[in-house]
């Protein structure tokens, strides 16, 4: 081996500095079985040199049986044996590659109609989506569906890759017609930025380098676009939200709150409000293993300490004072049903939102939305892959933002308590109309042996500072008061109490 005197250490630190400056783009891909999506991804991986020789050998070997010619790029991404046998992809697969400009994670999802579930899953963590359109077929029903799901899941950037241009003679007119048709669909989603690119995944046109076969196209290649499109701005610009994942108490001296910053930025000295209690305080320190920080942004895992001793527990949210989250017991949300067992109105599910689990009742299915037309469709049932607008009520106060404003604090999943399956993905659109009343602060209640005990932090009149709790035994008065308390959403004495406390 030639002894090359390379200043490894010096150049390495520069290299590392550049590597660490690279940002990450997570994108998802949607297309039907025949749109050549797996081939497109295989091509991106191959051309960005993210495929190792032995992996290439193993897919070249496997291709022989399916009598494909040379390298079958789609086999690089078809992971499981069952799929290789059937020749279709049936689940979300994650792929990784990087270029000198950026790191990428692809959520590769099958586009077949029955797999709306997978597309939603892939899109939930993506900032950009690539929708593939077959140049020979033009805009189909499913293109509409892909655009809708991208819009529903709050994807900022859409790339419409018009594939198989080689099979239509690289004809500009075909490309322009599809672009015009697709823009009509996108008119419904003003928040989405779109980019149209004509490609051939199989031949490699406009994937990495600009194609000589389409001199009429003056835009960036697909990869150039992916490398330069701005992302992540919305989550950094959003209001500060920090769901507490864990209370850190290594000794009597230290009390901190660990979690990942869901959105916005935090600095020591910031005034914040703790939810659901609504108490205001100041951030004292941002503690990490590597020392305290002067500032931390969305995505960073930190431990926060507060200026005042406030009783905080897992699931509480620390938020900026300026822009408060909402707090109710009922929300309206768009649900995507993910399970073979359909949604049941009136049933209690476990709801996971930010860093907490709670009981939640599916109150009603307000309307069903067609994935094909994006319009309301008849019926009030939600079966696998169906989408609907629903009302959900939670046992404890629910602190959230609308999904359109904040993905992290506006999303939830529903879990069937009997099977533990994740049955639905939810995106909150606002407080439920019937439950938009704020709870009465400072008043709590509990039942003890048939007696209702009402307590107040401040006392029931201005003169008494620490009043004795009020006890009510008369059945009729009790019934009336209980009804009133529920209407007013006065929380039970112990805020951690389960829904059963509400049912007494």
């Amino acid at each position, binding site marked *: *081996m030639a002894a090359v005197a390379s200043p*490894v*250490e010096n150049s*390495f630190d520069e290299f*590392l500095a550049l590597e*660490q400056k690279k940002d990450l783009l997570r994108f998802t891909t949607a297309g039907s079985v025949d749109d050549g999506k797996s081939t497109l991804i295989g091509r991106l991986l191959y051309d960005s040199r993210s495929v*190792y*020789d*032995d*992996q290439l050998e*193993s897919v070249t070997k*496997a291709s022989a049986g399916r009598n494909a010619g040379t390298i079958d790029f789609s086999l690089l991404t078809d*992971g*499981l*044996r069952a799929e*290789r046998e059937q020749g279709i992809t049936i*689940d*979300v*697969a*994650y*792929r*990784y590659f*990087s270029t000198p400009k950026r790191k990428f*994670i692809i959520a590769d999802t099958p586009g077949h109609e029955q797999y709306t*579930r*997978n597309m*939603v*899953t892939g899109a*939930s*963590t993506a900032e950009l989506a690539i929708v593939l359109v077959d140049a020979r077929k033009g805009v189909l029903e499913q293109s509409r569906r892909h655009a809708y799901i991208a819009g529903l899941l709050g994807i900022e950037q859409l790339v419409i890759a018009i594939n198989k241009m080689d099979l239509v003679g690289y004809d500009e007119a075909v490309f322009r017609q599809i672009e015009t048709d697709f823009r009509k669909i996108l008119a419904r989603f003003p928040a989405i930025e779109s980019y149209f690119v004509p490609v051939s995944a199989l031949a490699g046109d406009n994937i990495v380098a600009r194609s000589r076969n389409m001199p009429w196209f003056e835009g960036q290649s697909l990869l150039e676009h992916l490398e330069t499109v701005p992302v992540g701005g919305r989550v950094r610009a959003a209001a500060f939200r920090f769901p507490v*994942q*864990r209370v*850190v*108490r*290594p000794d009597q001296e*230290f009390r*901190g709150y*660990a*979690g990942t910053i869901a959105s916005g930025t935090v600095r020591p000295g910031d005034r914040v409000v703790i939810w659901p209690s609504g108490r205001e305080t100041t951030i004292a320190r941002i*503690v*990490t*293993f*590597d020392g305290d920080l002067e500032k931390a942004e969305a995505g960073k*895992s930190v*431990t926060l300490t507060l200026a005042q001793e406030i009783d905080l527990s*897992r699931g509480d949210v620390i938020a900026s004072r300026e822009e408060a989250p909402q707090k109710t017991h009922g929300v309206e949300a768009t649900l995507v049903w*993910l399970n073979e067992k359909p949604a049941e109105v009136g049933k209690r599910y*476990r709801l*996971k939102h930010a*860093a907490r689990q709670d009981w939640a009742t599916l109150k009603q299915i307000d309307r069903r939305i067609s994935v094909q037309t994006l319009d309301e469709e008849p019926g009030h049932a939600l079966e696998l892959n169906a989408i609907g607008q629903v009302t959900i009520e939670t046992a404890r106060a629910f602190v959230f933002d609308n999904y359109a404003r904040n*993905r*992290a604090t506006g*999303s939830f*999943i529903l*879990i069937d*308590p009997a099977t*533990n*399956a*994740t049955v639905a*993905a939810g995106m909150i659109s606002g407080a439920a109309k019937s439950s938009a009343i704020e709870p009465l602060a400072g008043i709590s209640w509990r039942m003890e042996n048939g007696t209702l005990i009402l307590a107040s932090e401040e006392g029931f009149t201005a003169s008494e500072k620490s009043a004795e709790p009020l006890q009510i035994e008369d059945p009729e008065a009790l019934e009336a008061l209980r009804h009133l308390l529920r209407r007013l959403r006065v929380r039970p004495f112990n805020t951690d109490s389960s829904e059963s406390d509400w049912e007494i």
Partner: protein
Amino acid sequence: MREVVAECQRPVLLYSIGKDSSVLLRLAQKAFYPGKIPFPLLHVDTGYKFGEMIEFRDRYTAELGLKLIVHTNRPGAEDGANPFAWGTQRCCGALKTTSLLDALREGGFDAAMGGARRDEERSRAKERVFSFRDTRGQWDPRNQRPELWNLFNTRIHPGESLRVFPLSNWTELDVWQYIYAEKIPIVPLYFAKPRLMLARGDSLLPVEQPFVPRLPGEEPQMVMCRMRSLGCSPCTGAIRSDADTVPKIIEELISVRRSERQNRVIDHDQDGSMEIKKQEGYF
């Protein structure tokens, strides 16, 4: 990791002594700082790990003051299980898969965190961050829960368990860069030095175990080499390399054209073999 500790009853970190495990330990330190790591470590020892790995394991976990559980499948080893006598599939089944399931059951662990990454092998690309295992510890690729946003479903029934992969979205290059940036200690086997090997074409076979069969007239020779991934010594080939520092390893990684599991015999014993091992409960 914080989510696992908050929502599971008895979590454990599966510690394989490899570079990914070292990274996991650092992440755990950070996740719970200034508190201590609130779960024990479990190492499933086949008895065929490199001596240097065991030495590193005992020293490093003691330094960090961690609770380490070592589980060895005695009967399998006493039956004479080894990859040459039994074949790799049966040997792995007895010494790794069965042993891991036994250890998890004995410890009553309901969540086992490990350092597996999705970029390692094709069947792992669809693995969940929170991967569900039935009461027999088995993995059904068709019956995994969809994972949306960062909302992980940690609910299980008694007897069922979760495998959790915090490094799911890391690549091999990410791991090495992190090791360099954080100055994380790793087993010296990752660094190149002259080692006694059986050289067969491109393959370099370590000779730590006496049962590794030799071809007629074959003699071990000193070869400048290193391990790209670590497993049992009879099934982990070395690669020719003079990368003896982390920067050189990263430089080599960028130019290399072969994946890190390529030297792992067990991935290639049949097409789709990792998938089959996983269904049976292999980590």
